[in-house]
């Protein structure tokens, strides 16, 4: 099993209010290359689960294994895409996409080449020298997507990525994600509270 979630609980302890249980004994198995959509109302713990898989947080009990290894901290192999994009406003599109490549043993030229390739993939080549603030929400999310793909992760974790976008933009973005999922063979976990959006992805329900 590629991603194995075994009896995972996450409880939050508060000084005066006691314990809040965000997740209770969750079991889940995800195959490589699967597209899994987590649907549920706000506050049901789906983002908590995504944070645990990303390694930003650790479970109070239970384990999450990816490729047989227990998740304890974030990794470039699973990149989170946030609802508010998380772009660095002081960097151009190109420099934003280069962010994850800067720690790797690449020359400046190679880095640029890879970044440009992914900017092309999301259709933003004409905007590579723009700053995030000069782009629309949909374009910013494309930049975040290019930045995530540039480090070639096996898993993409998407936390209501289109929550801040209008319906039209959302539809084009959905098509885009579908295309990229098929082309790049990524495993994608997609969190949403929007039933319609979940049905867009749906092939199998459990």
């Amino acid at each position, binding site marked *: 099993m590629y991603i194995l979630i075994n009896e995972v609980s996450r409880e939050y302890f508060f000084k005066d209010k006691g314990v809040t249980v965000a997740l209770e004994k969750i079991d889940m198995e995800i195959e490589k290359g699967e597209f899994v959509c987590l649907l549920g109302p706000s506050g049901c713990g789906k983002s908590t689960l995504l944070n645990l898989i990303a390694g930003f947080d650790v479970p109070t009990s239970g384990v999450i294994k990816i490729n047989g290894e227990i998740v304890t901290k974030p*990794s*470039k192999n699973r990149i989170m895409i946030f*609802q508010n994009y*998380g772009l*660095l406003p002081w960097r151009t599109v190109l420099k934003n996409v280069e*962010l*994850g490549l800067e720690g790797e043993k690449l020359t400046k030229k190679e880095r640029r080449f890879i970044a440009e390739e992914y900017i092309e993939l999301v259709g933003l080549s004409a905007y590579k020298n723009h700053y995030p*603030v000069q782009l629309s*929400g949909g374009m910013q999310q494309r930049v975040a997507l290019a930045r995530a793909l540039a480090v070639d992760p096996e898993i993409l974790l998407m936390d209501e990525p289109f929550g*801040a976008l209008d319906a039209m933009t959302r539809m084009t973005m959905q098509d885009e994600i579908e295309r990229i999922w098929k082309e790049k063979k990524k495993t994608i976990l997609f969190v949403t509270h929007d039933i319609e959006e979940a049905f867009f992805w749906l092939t199998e329900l459990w």
Partner: protein
Amino acid sequence: MKGFRKALEVVISISVLTALWELIALAGRFEKSLFPSPAAVLAGISELVEDQTLFANIKVSLVRFFTGYLSAVAAGIGLGLLLGWNKSIWAFVDPVVQILRPISPIAWFPFIVLWFGIGDAPAVVIIFIAAFFPVLLSTVSGVGNVDLIYLKVAENFGIKEPRLLFKIILPAAFPMIVNGLHLALGSAWVFLVAGEMVGAQSGLGFMIIDARNSLRTDLVLAGIIIIGLLGFLLDRLIRILEDRIKSRWMALPGVED
């Protein structure tokens, strides 16, 4: 149109002030040296321009100012980054800073002269003290208020200290740091003059003291006006920088919802 209106407002405001001033000087029949008229001050300024003391003094003052200010900026941002990031150390440093901060830099003057002698150094040190605390405190608070999402992104892409400090924390905190730079510029300019009045033989502050010693109140006032104008110009310059940075940073991605 807006620019024109603004310019008009400035011209009117200054003309009215000058006219009132001239009127009072004429009507009141004050002793000339106790209340120099605008005309006298204008003549004083051109006198200072002609004997070349004005530009020489401006140059000296600006060099001192930027030496003190820029070194305070470098020290304040550098230390602020480290202390803001290491909260446990800051907890010990903070009380000391809170006690030192309200002390006027001029209060240190006796020690400054003993330690640094006279000449350029006292004024530079006083400017440094005046600018240092606002820069330090705004950097510490900027670092403490960095949006969590930047830290998550950095963690996700494997950016660790010390690269994290320069690639993420510093730029993310920059809008708040620039606030501090602006504040510091203002207070440093105020203390430049004070510093030069007590410990220097040149510069704009000294120019005023020198004029007073020879009972040339027209030149005293000329000096005061020049200081005001230069301070205003410096403030405008840093405001342009501030606006540029904020327009790019503050409109953060995703806050439109």
